[in-house]
C-alpha cells in the first residue's frame, strides 16, 4: 500500500473518493459540495462530482432539515449518503431529523428501517469564529440512542474511520475538528477501514491514563514531552469513537495505571467526560490511586477574542498541570 503525506481535510477527501469508487451506493450531499460550487467551502469534497457525477454528489440549498431528510430517505432506499452539515452548530437546525428520525427509525420500525447515513460536520475553537461556529456537541449525540459518534484526531484515522462510518449500517456522526484538520500525517492511498468503537493507544505508560478524542488528543500529546521530563509515564488513549466508546480499553489502561484524566474540548459541565469518568470510578472503585479528573471547556459559549479563545481551550499546559496534580 502506498502511503502519502496529507492533512486530515485531504484525508476526508481521499476517504470519500475511495468509498465512492468502491461502492456506487455511496452519495454525497450538502451545501456547496459539488465542483460547480468549488467542491465545498473547505475543499473537502473537491473533485468528487467531476469524478463520480452530479447525480451522486449534490449541492443543496441552505436547508439542513432537507439535507438530512434527503439522506434518510435515500438510505431507506438502499443508498449510503454522506451528508455534510457545514458546521456542528448547524446540526441544531436539523436536530429533529437527526434525533427523532435518523437515530430512531430502526428501533421504531422494529428493525425494518435501516439508515446508514454519515453526517460529516466540522467544529472546534481556534479560528476565532466565536459563539455559533465552534461548539463540540458530541455529548448530545453520545446521549442519543441509535447514532454512533466518531471523532478522529489524525489524518489516518480521519480516513479509516470515515470509511467505516460510510459502510456502517447505522447512522454515524463524523466530527471534524479545527484543531486537527490541517495537521499532516501519513495516509494510505487505498486505506483499510478502522473499526468503530476501538480506541487507539497513542502512547503506553504506567503512571496515569489520559482519555481524550478529536483535536484534544493533539493537545494532550503536546503535553507528553514535559510530563516525560517530569518522570511521569503517561498512557494516552485516543477514543476515536465516542459512542460506543471502548470501555474495555479504557478500563484496562486505568486498571494498570491506577489514575485517570479525561480531557475533551467540549464544555466540561454535563459533558461526555462524565460518562467516562464515572464509569472508571465505579468499575475500578477501590483500585484507584487518585480521583478521576475531567478537563473541558468552561461553561461558556466560545468567545471571539483570541486571548479568551486560548483560555477556553484546554491547553497542553493545563493537561500537564492536571496530570502532575494527580501524581502529587
Amino acid at each position: 500500500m502506498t502511503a502519502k503525506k496529507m492533512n486530515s481535510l485531504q484525508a476526508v477527501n481521499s476517504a470519500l473518493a475511495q468509498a465512492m469508487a468502491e461502492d456506487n451506493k455511496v452519495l454525497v450531499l450538502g451545501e456547496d459540495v459539488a465542483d460547480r460550487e468549488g467542491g465545498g467551502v473547505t475543499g473537502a469534497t473537491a473533485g468528487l462530482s467531476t469524478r463520480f457525477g452530479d447525480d451522486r454528489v449534490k449541492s443543496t440549498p441552505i436547508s439542513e432539515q432537507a439535507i438530512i431528510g434527503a439522506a434518510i430517505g435515500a438510505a431507506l432506499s438502499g443508498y449510503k449518503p454522506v451528508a455534510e452539515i457545514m458546521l456542528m452548530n448547524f446540526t441544531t437546525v436539523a436536530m429533529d431529523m437527526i434525533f427523532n428520525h435518523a437515530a430512531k427509525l430502526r428501533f421504531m420500525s422494529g428493525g425494518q428501517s435501516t439508515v446508514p447515513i454519515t453526517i460529516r460536520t466540522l467544529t472546534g475553537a481556534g479560528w476565532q469564529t466565536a459563539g455559533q461556529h465552534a461548539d463540540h456537541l458530541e455529548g448530545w449525540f453520545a446521549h442519543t440512542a441509535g447514532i454512533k459518534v466518531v471523532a478522529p484526531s489524525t489524518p489516518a484515522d480521519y480516513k479509516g474511520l470515515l470509511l467505516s462510518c460510510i459502510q456502517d449500517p447505522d447512522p454515524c456522526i463524523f466530527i471534524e475538528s479545527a484543531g486537527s484538520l490541517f495537521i499532516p500525517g501519513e495516509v494510505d492511498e487505498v486505506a483499510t477501514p478502522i473499526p468503530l468503537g476501538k480506541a487507539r493507544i497513542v502512547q503506553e505508560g504506567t503512571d496515569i491514563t489520559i482519555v481524550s478524542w478529536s483535536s484534544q488528543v493533539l493537545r494532550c500529546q503536546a503535553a507528553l514531552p514535559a510530563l516525560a521530563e517530569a518522570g511521569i509515564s503517561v498512557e494516552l488513549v485516543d477514543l476515536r469513537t465516542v459512542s460506543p466508546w471502548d470501555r474495555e480499553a479504557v478500563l484496562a489502561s486505568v486498571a494498570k495505571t491506577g489514575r485517570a484524566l479525561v480531557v475533551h474540548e467540549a464544555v466540561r459541565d454535563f459533558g461526555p467526560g462524565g460518562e467516562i469518568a464515572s464509569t472508571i470510578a465505579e468499575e475500578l472503585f477501590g483500585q484507584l490511586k487518585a480521583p478521576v479528573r475531567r478537563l473541558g471547556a468552561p461553561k461558556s459559549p466560545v468567545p471571539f477574542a483570541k486571548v479568551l479563545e486560548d483560555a477556553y481551550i484546554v491547553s497542553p499546559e493545563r493537561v500537564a498541570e492536571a496530570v502532575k496534580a494527580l501524581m502529587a
Partner: protein
Amino acid sequence: MAELSNAPAPSQEALVDIYRRMIRIERNDDAIRKTIRLGRLVMPYYSARGQEVIPATISSLLTDDDKICTIYRGIHDMVAKDMPLRPLWAEIAGRVDGTCKGKGGPMHLTHPETGVMVTTGIVGSSMPIANGLAWAAKLDGSKRVTIAYFGDGASNIGAFHEALNLASVWKLPVIFVCQNNGFAEHTRYENGTSVDFIAKRAIGYGMPGHTVDGNDPLAMYAAAHEAITRAREGEGPTLLECKTFRFLGHVLGDDDKYMTKEEKAAAIAKDPLPAFKAWLVAQGHATEDQLADMQAKIEAEVEDAQEFGLASPLPSVDELRRDVFAQEMPA
C-alpha cells in the same frame, strides 16, 4: 360531484376500488375506536374519519412500489395503500407480530413491502424524508413516486418549506399531499395560516399547486392523476391541498370545544362515504349487493386482524436492546 374535463375519467373498476379503500379505512377505524373504548387497546388515537377519500383516491393510482411517508394521523393512508391489517393491529396492540414488533406503535407504523416507509409523530417531518425516497427513485432510474402526507398545520413549519424548495430544485418525483381538515389540534386554519389556500404556496417553489375538494373522489382523482403522472414522467413535484374535515377531533376523546356544533354537524352531514356509495350505485358502477358483499369481506378482514393482533404475544424486554443499532446490544 363534478367530473373535471381535462383529466382522464376513472374507470368503473377504479371507482369501485376507491370505494373499497374508503370503506376499508372506515371499517378499520370504527373497529379501532370500539376496541379502544372497550379498553382492549391503549394508545393515543388520531382518527382520520372523514378524510378517507384523499388516500383512497391517491392509492388507487399507486403501485406497491410507490412509497408514502405519513404522520400520526395516518392509519387511513396506510390502509388505503393496502397495508395488511394483521400486523397493523398487532402493532397498535404493542405485540410481537406488529409491523414494528410493538416498539413503534400507532404513530410509527412501517411496512416497506406496501410502501409505507415512514410514519412520524413530528409535524412536518414526513416531507424531507419523502424527498430522499424520491431522490433514490430518480437515482435508480425508476418511475416510482413518493407521496408525502401532512396536515394543514404542518404547512407552517420549517420542514415544509425546505422540503418543497429542495424537491423543486432537484425536480424530484414526489407529491406533497396536504390533508387540510381545517384544524391543527385546536387551532382553526386561519388562526395559524397566513394564506387563504395552502396551494398558493406552491408559487413560491415554482411548482404546480392545486386546491381540491378532498371529499370528492372525482376531483381528487383528476388532481392526483395529473400530479402522479407529472412525477412519473420526471417533471417534478406538485403540491396538492385537499380540503376535508376530521369528524372526531384531534385525538380520540377530544371535546371539540374549539369548534361549533353546527360546523361539525354540517361537515358530518357531507360525509363522503355514504355519498360516494349512493353515487356509485346511482351511476350503475356497482350494485348495493356488490358493495354490501365487499363491506362484509372487509369487516371479516378487520375482525380477523383484530383477533390476530390482540392474541399476539407481548414482546420480550430484550427488545429494548434490539434494533437500536444493527447489532444487538449486550445485556
